């Protein structure tokens, strides 16, 4: 990644003019340990002015926002991934280090670094801060969650802390927006203040042992303070990272430094941590007063139940059941509203335009497509709201810990659990979040199985089929059969993902499992405002990335279903005419072509067409069905899905006259969709995350293939197994 000679560090002290507007622009990098309320603070600072992208060349998510500073200048804030240190043990931490050193492609070195310190956890948080102080960049600290620290009986002497650290420290409560204005002013003033620097002195033997290494790094163009930081940091690493590839003779110099330290009876591996924590211990002693006895906290008491090896798992599964029930029952009315709106628009277009291809394109293609995109929004919003709530409340880490036992059984780390859970919302961000898994084989195995977790794009398919074919019978008072069927589909996907992971970890991707090391943050109430911002961000991202693809595909599908024009004899009833048209269209011919392949599953060509069309994005299934059955957009009652459900229940085979959609066919179809990898976006992201290029696409193809085999086999088993058991097929 890094070319030789890129070790030169531009020292950019002053804010530079914005190329476009000529106005001053201040670039701020936001950094902090996980669980410090960093994202909440970011949301409080920048509000809705956020953009989500990727760092060039890698897929670590890049979230940027901006605000208008006190002096009227634009302040751009880059939210770097949560890191415990700059020792780059995961790709996320490596990106943070590269950005701070000005070595990240396409990201200028920040003018100011804003570090978030959790007031309750000051000691541990100061480790990262002490490394950041040596970067030679103006540094401001937000001492966040001071309210929680005070509630826990802690007192932090902020003026003393400022004196000890030599940087501006602003107490904040990001969840309530307290201290944010002070923080903005401090960021604005930071470039005028003296640069922060290392606040501890190396013992003479250590300083002597490190001097040649530091000199070597300075020679390669590193600023003196950065050379000192790197020298200390590199001692504990197995190999220097890519950004130091340009430093000639680094490995030899590093080996000499380690040998010299060992001669002086110093452990080079623990030296940095011992020195920094030694200094931090003194700082904390002078600035923090805590209750004399470390009390058993409320979180500890809650954890005795939630971390129980049986109850912990039971509570987790129950929580998930409630979440899915809520998605099913809360999203439906919102989707109804969206569908009515689309229906109104469609009627408006019909009133304005004469019957013909243009009207059909607008009503069935564009509005039908937009309807199927927008129908997703309530589900995605609710799911991300829940995931955000679990994350921010601190429960997600407990879930990972409780599930570690299970994950380990299938050969994965508890860390794989969070990406897998995120797969319930969407496989694309879930696969991107596998970067928290350090072991490459664990990561690969997780990526391979994440798409088996039922994502929100499968929900419309499940919702359509469950709504049409599963009766809403009450079960145990609270749940109904529809909700339980939905839960069963999710459990089937989850179970398959675990089994597949176990198989991969024992065959293709055999390797050791990294041990579990996880911080459990204290429980806290999430900030609703910040959750709202995060959910909005996800929805916009979905509409931008997936929505456009789905809309384009809907138009293509409309064209495939409309051309070539069928010759319909005059006087044919309208419904029969549209069916004839579809049968003779390009889409109909494709459906007929694959009919022999899907007939063993009990499907006819119409289901075949919908399946073919949904190989790019599975949610297209619903809109294709709507097109095929002529209920797209133009539904009279304003509810497309409801109209489609009724149409499906009434559908009979023109040959045998029997009902096409028996419960077995519907169930088999759902099972097919549980397993099948039908998402272009996921395949693309898999290819990129598994190495890109030829290797990446081979993994993506493998993923697609094994999931298709599972899907076909599963649907076949349901259909034929069900018939063998005497159910009507």
């Amino acid at each position: 990644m890094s070319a030789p000679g890129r070790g030169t560090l531009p020292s950019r002290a002053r804010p530079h003019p914005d190329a476009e507007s000529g106005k001053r622009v201040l670039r701020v990098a936001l950094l902090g340990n996980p669980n410090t309320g960093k994202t909440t603070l970011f949301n409080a600072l920048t509000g809705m002015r956020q953009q989500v992208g990727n760092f060039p060349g890698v897929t670590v998510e890049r979230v940027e926002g901006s605000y208008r500073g006190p002096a009227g200048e634009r302040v751009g804030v880059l939210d770097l991934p949560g890191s415990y240190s700059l020792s780059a043990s995961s790709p996320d931490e490596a990106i943070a280090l590269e950005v701070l050193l000005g070595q990240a492609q396409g990201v200028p070195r920040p003018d100011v670094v804003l570090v978030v310190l959790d007031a309750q956890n000051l000691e541990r948080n100061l480790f990262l801060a002490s490394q950041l102080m040596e970067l030679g960049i103006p540094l401001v600290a937000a001492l966040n969650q001071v309210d929680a620290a005070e509630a826990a009986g802690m007192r932090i002497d902020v003026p003393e802390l400022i004196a000890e650290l030599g940087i501006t420290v602003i107490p904040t409560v990001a969840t309530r927006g307290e201290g944010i204005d002070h923080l903005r002013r401090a960021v604005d003033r930071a470039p005028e203040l003296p640069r922060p620097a290392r606040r501890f002195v190396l013992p003479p033997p250590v300083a002597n042992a490190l001097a040649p290494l530091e000199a070597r790094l300075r020679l390669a163009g590193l600023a003196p303070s950065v050379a000192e930081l790197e020298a200390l940091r590199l001692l504990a690493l197995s190999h220097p990272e890519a950004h130091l590839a340009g430093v000639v003779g680094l490995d030899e110099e590093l080996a000499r430094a380690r040998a010299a330290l060992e001669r002086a009876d110093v452990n080079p591996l623990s030296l940095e941590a011992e020195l920094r924590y030694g200094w931090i211990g003194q700082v904390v002693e002078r600035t923090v007063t805590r209750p004399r006895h470390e009390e058993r906290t409320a979180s500890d008491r809650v954890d005795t139940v939630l971390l129980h090896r049986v109850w912990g798992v039971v509570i987790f599964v129950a929580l998930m059941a409630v979440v899915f029930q809520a998605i099913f029952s809360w999203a439906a009315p919102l989707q109804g509203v969206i569908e009515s709106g689309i229906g109104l628009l469609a009627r408006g277009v019909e009133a304005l335009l004469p019957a013909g291809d243009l009207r059909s394109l607008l009503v069935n293609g564009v509005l039908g497509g937009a309807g199927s995109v927008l129908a997703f929004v309530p589900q995605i919003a609710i799911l991300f709201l829940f995931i955000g709530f679990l994350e921010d409340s601190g429960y997600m880490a407990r879930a990972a810990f409780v599930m570690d036992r299970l994950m380990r059984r299938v050969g994965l780390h508890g860390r794989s659990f969070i990406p897998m859970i995120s797969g319930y919302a969407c496989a694309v961000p879930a696969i991107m979040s596998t970067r928290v898994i350090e072991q490459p084989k664990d990561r690969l195995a997780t990526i391979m199985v994440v798409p088996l977790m039922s994502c929100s794009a499968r929900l419309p398919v499940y919702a359509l089929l469950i709504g049409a074919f599963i009766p809403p019978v009450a079960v145990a008072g609270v749940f109904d059969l529809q909700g339980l069927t939905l839960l069963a589909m999710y459990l089937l996907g989850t179970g398959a993902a675990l089994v597949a992971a176990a198989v991969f970890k024992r065959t293709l991707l055999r390797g050791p499992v990294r041990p579990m090391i996880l911080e459990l943050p204290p429980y806290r109430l999430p900030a609703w405002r910040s959750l709202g911002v995060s959910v909005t961000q996800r929805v916009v991202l979905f509409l931008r990335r997936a929505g456009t693809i789905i809309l384009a595909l809907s138009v293509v599908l409309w064209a495939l279903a409309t051309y070539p024009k069928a010759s319909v004899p005059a006087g044919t009833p309208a419904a029969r005419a549209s069916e004839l048209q579809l049968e003779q269209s390009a889409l109909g011919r494709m459906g007929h072509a694959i009919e022999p392949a899907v007939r063993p599953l009990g499907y006819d060509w119409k289901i075949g067409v919908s399946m073919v069309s949904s190989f790019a994005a599975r949610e297209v299934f619903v809109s294709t069905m709507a097109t095929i059955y002529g209920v797209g957009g133009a539904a009279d009652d304003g509810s497309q899905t409801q109209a489609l459900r009724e149409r499906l229940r009434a559908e009979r085979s023109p040959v045998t006259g029997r009902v096409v959609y028996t419960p077995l066919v519907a169930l088999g179809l759902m099972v097919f969709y549980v397993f099948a990898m039908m998402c272009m976006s996921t395949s693309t992201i898999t290819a990129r995350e598994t190495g890109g290029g030829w290797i990446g696409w081979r993994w993506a193809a493998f993923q697609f293939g094994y999931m298709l085999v599972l899907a076909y086999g599963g649907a076949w088993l349901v259909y034929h197994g069900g018939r063998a058991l005497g159910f009507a097929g």
Partner: protein
Amino acid sequence: MLARRSVQPDHRSTASALPVIDCQRSCALAECERGCQAMVVGMGCAAPDACRLRALGVVEGTRVTVVDSRNGMLLSVRGSRLALGATIAAAIVVVPMDVAHGAAPDQASAPPAAVASHT
């Protein structure tokens, strides 16, 4: 599962305000029970894991308290809670400390580790 070893109080330390460390009593962290306080003296795990642990504040010389040992290990380290799997807990070498001087987090509700012996 690993056999849990109970921690005997060190009576020689009664005169001193600082806990006395007896290096011969070192054991794996996994052997400590709930309420036990111990000082980390070595890391027998792979280098990247040790590096991560040190960044999280588990450094040689750090005092840790076992908050929960039913299911992996839940530690109190420098005021934060750290969950460790059984493998890593078995690889960290500690010297258990006399709980009479430090305050166990739940002295009131649970007997000190020294009494909770069943080996």
